[in-house]
């Protein structure tokens, strides 16, 4: 069972500052909110431009449950009054980004938490991110089918589930994250796609539950500041 609550952030970047934004989150923001509020960084990624919007950064934070979420938010906000370090980070980051869009997510029961993701080494070099919109009221059925029908197919092809989430506030909206150990696995997945009858059958059936699904890649960036 996974009762965690997640904040998923999509941050469009100004100019060439994507690497600087990622470095700030990795080296300063995450350690601070981890130490003070117990908020865990599930991932910070560069959106892979050849597959989606660019330049953008994705960030996902994990909290134990809604009570932890409330404590962590109340501790930080309004930041000018309660957390001078976050206030300073926020203002420094204005050089890198002007806005963004965040989603409050709850995980399916079968989604691993951060501790499990790290212990099992699920993240890998690249992550397949899927934005999901279900038909009205069909997200639970989709998530059940994802677990029982698609997950075995996906895992047989090197995709490892990092999380299947639904938006806590916006109905019929969700995100799937799948880790790939190496870039070569994504290449193999794409090369086999036109001839993979099992995946095609699953893909075509998704209309039973979904309005749409948009897949793209996010990558864990190099250790130095990414320059693109």
């Amino acid at each position, binding site marked *: 069972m996974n009762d965690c609550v997640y904040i998923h952030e999509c941050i*469009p*970047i100004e*100019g*060439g500052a994507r690497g600087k934004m990622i470095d700030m989150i990795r080296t300063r923001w995450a350690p601070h909110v981890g130490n003070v509020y117990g908020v865990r960084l599930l991932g910070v990624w*560069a959106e*892979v*431009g*050849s*597959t*989606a*919007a*660019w*330049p953008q950064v994705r960030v996902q934070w994990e909290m134990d449950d809604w009570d932890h979420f409330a404590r962590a938010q109340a501790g930080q906000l309004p930041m000018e009054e309660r957390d001078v370090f976050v206030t300073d980070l926020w203002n420094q980051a204005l050089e890198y980004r002007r806005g963004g869009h965040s989603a409050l997510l709850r995980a399916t029961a079968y989604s691993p938490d951060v501790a499990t993701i790290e212990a099992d080494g699920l993240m890998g*070099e*690249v992550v*397949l991110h*899927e934005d999901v919109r279900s038909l009205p009221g069909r997200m639970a059925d989709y998530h059940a089918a994802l677990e029982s029908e698609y997950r075995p197919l996906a895992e047989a092809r090197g995709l490892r589930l990092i999380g299947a989430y639904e938006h806590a506030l916006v109905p019929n909206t969700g995100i799937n994250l799948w880790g790939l150990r190496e*870039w*070569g696995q*994504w*290449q193999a997945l*794409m*090369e086999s*796609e*036109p001839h993979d009858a099992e995946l095609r059958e699953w*893909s*075509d*059936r*998704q*209309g039973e539950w*979904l309005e*749409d*699904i*948009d*897949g*793209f*890649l996010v*990558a*864990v*960036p*190099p*250790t*130095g500041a*990414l*320059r*693109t």
Partner: protein
Amino acid sequence: MNPNIYLHEYVRTVPGREEPYLASVLSLHHEPSRTKLGHPAFAQFRSVQTSGRWPMGINIWENTWAGQTADLVGQFLDARRDTAMEDWWQRNLHLRRGGYDRLLIPADYSPTLADVEARGVHGEVFLQEIMWLPFGEARRFLDELGDRLLPRLDDLGCDLLGAFRVAMRPRQVCTIVGAREWAGLAELAKAFRRDPAVSGWDRYKAEVTQQAEEMLLLPARHGPLYRRP
């Protein structure tokens, strides 16, 4: 059979800087300091304020999954970083603000760059359409286009530049048709109502398309698709 894939890039250019941006993109592939040669541009366009979003730059690159993966590894793994590309990225921030890309999988009949060059395809204007279809319809859509519209294009003064599914986005397809002259686009528009084969195609398209975005595109003036007087 077209064995390639295509990287399709929408670029939000700085208004008025579309052509300089398109030239700067191509210049990267002539960079003497770059150890790795780039892939040839399949096509470059800018959008025009006649229909659809503008201003935009559009780059399309022919590649393979192996080549595309190697390009991405060069961006995201320390060991194989493409520093010449990183320098170029930073140098050209004054020309573009961001963008949105797709990876395209061609229909078997969709021409390769070699086919386009051999046929001498060029045009004054190109019609690009991106459509959202029901799950499971994309392959049939491309088959229908190949059967109904493709055989009529030459008579209308048009050429198919590409017909694609979109990787990892199972509901989307992308098609690009070039008109050798603006009059060819007018003939195509008239044929939607008057030509039995083309009107049948248009009716089918209307029945299955749940969302669409169209764009009229001008070919980059330094590129081979540009029709010189």
